[in-house]
């Protein structure tokens, strides 16, 4: 967990953390976010087209973290849009489905792409979703598991990733994924250099290039904006 803030009074302003979700289609990326943001689960979640955007706050010791979550579409066809979303992100969740071996391979490809092209300091979590399907306590069956825990964990360790198996359906481990990510991000650094850090936008390209350094990322600590955003 992050050390407590050294800078005087407890910080009321939320610290923005941009997080992107990547992974094969239908592994449950949107469901993980929905569980985290609304503590809900929908059995048949409509496929994400392009990307969805959600925000959620959580408390970490004396700090408030506001996750800005880009939940991307899983079909290979949308792959070329992904850089637009992970380019300035401080964190990524790369999700796979514990009952689909190929989804771990796809996840590994994402991890490699992030290592090559995303922020060097990006905190990446590898998350095996649909744990409920393989746990007897939730009416699942270990026999349908296609990705052994040891294999995924070994890969995560080797590449310095956080690792979880989770279930968006039951909620198991979902909050932990996000709080552990928050704990690993150098928040004090983000706080000290909000202009640089919060966006992580080191000369980012994209549509808004030029207008680039958006210095007002923390402005929505103002009460007006707070009404509009998530309640937590």
């Amino acid at each position, binding site marked *: 967990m992050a050390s407590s803030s050294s800078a005087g009074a407890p910080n009321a302003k939320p610290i*923005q953390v941009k997080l992107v979700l990547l992974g094969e*289609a*239908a592994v449950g990326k949107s469901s993980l976010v929905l569980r985290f943001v609304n503590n809900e689960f*929908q*059995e*048949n*979640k*409509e*496929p*994400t*087209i*392009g*990307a*969805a*955007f*959600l*925000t959620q706050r959580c408390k970490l010791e004396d700090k408030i973290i*506001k996750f*800005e979550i880009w939940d991307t*579409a*899983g*079909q290979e*066809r*949308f792959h*070329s*849009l992904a850089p*637009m979303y992970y380019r*300035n992100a401080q964190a990524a969740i790369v999700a796979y489905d514990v009952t689909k071996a190929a989804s771990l391979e796809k996840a590994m490809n994402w991890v490699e792409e992030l290592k090559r092209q995303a922020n060097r300091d990006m905190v990446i979590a590898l998350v095996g979703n649909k744990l409920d399907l393989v746990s007897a306590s939730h009416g699942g069956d270990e026999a349908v598991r296609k990705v052994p825990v040891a294999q995924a964990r070994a890969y995560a360790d080797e590449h310095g990733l956080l690792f979880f198996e989770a279930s968006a359906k039951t909620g198991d481990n979902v909050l932990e994924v996000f709080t552990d990510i928050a704990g690993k991000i150098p928040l004090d650094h983000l706080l000290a250099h909000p202009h640089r850090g919060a*966006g992580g*936008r080191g000369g*980012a390209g*994209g*549509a*808004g290039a*030029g*207008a680039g350094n*958006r210095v*007002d*990322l923390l*402005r*929505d600590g*103002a009460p*007006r*904006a707070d009404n*509009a*955003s998530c309640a937590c």
Partner: protein
Amino acid sequence: MPPSRRRLKKLVHKGVPHAMRAAAWFRLAGAHDRLEEGRYAALAAEAADPATAAANPFFDIIERDLHRCFPNHVLFCTPGGEGQQALREVLRAYALFNPTVGYCQGLGMVAGTLLMLLERERAFWVLVCLLETPCKGLYDPDLLQLKTDAIVFDRLLAKKLPRLARHFCANDVSALMFITQWFLTIFTTSLPWPSALRVWDMLLVDGPKAIFRIGLAVLMIGKRHLIKACPTNAEILPWILHVPTEHLQPDAVVFVALGIELRASDIVKMRLSASKAQLAGLV
């Protein structure tokens, strides 16, 4: 434009009566001319063959989306029910018919919308016509047309709503972040249902400029809120991706959209210029 065509457009802009929509869409899309007798049955039979299913890379992804397209609609909510079976058949048939496009997420919603009105074969041919004419290239594997259209949309926004465009630019919000959802589902997941149907009416008589106009209209309606109450992308994007429906009732959206001056030839020119810029690596 012949006067009869102009009159037809005017009528369609007012909204096709729902009881006539199935017949009107089939006709307006040009499906009556495009339909090849027996072709759909042959594709459907091929699609049902387990060997085809195993070999076609798109069938698996179609399967993953079947129970997720309009999961709350009575036609599609039953696993393995008539609606899902029809959707599977039409999407598979299309993937075989057009292997270049195959299946792209978003098409499930498009085909699903058609299946709410038309039986399988007719829905299939309207789908074919949509992807050959007003939505041509939009679902191609490289998504190049979509990316070109995002540039066009950004440029139109700068022209028609300059203050909002500057607000978006300052917050790193670009059209590609929202038109992907808007365009690829032809607004079926972004607008209240009666409004989405009106968008389809317009699309079938006006071509692609209809979806640009509707997109601009949504932002025009939301402009004040977006500028005043959405200081950063953390407020802007959720609003655009989940537009509150109370302002988007059919007559309001269509009225604003039709008031936006935009010619089909403008879209052709702007697409050409955007794709040139893209190829030259300028964008």
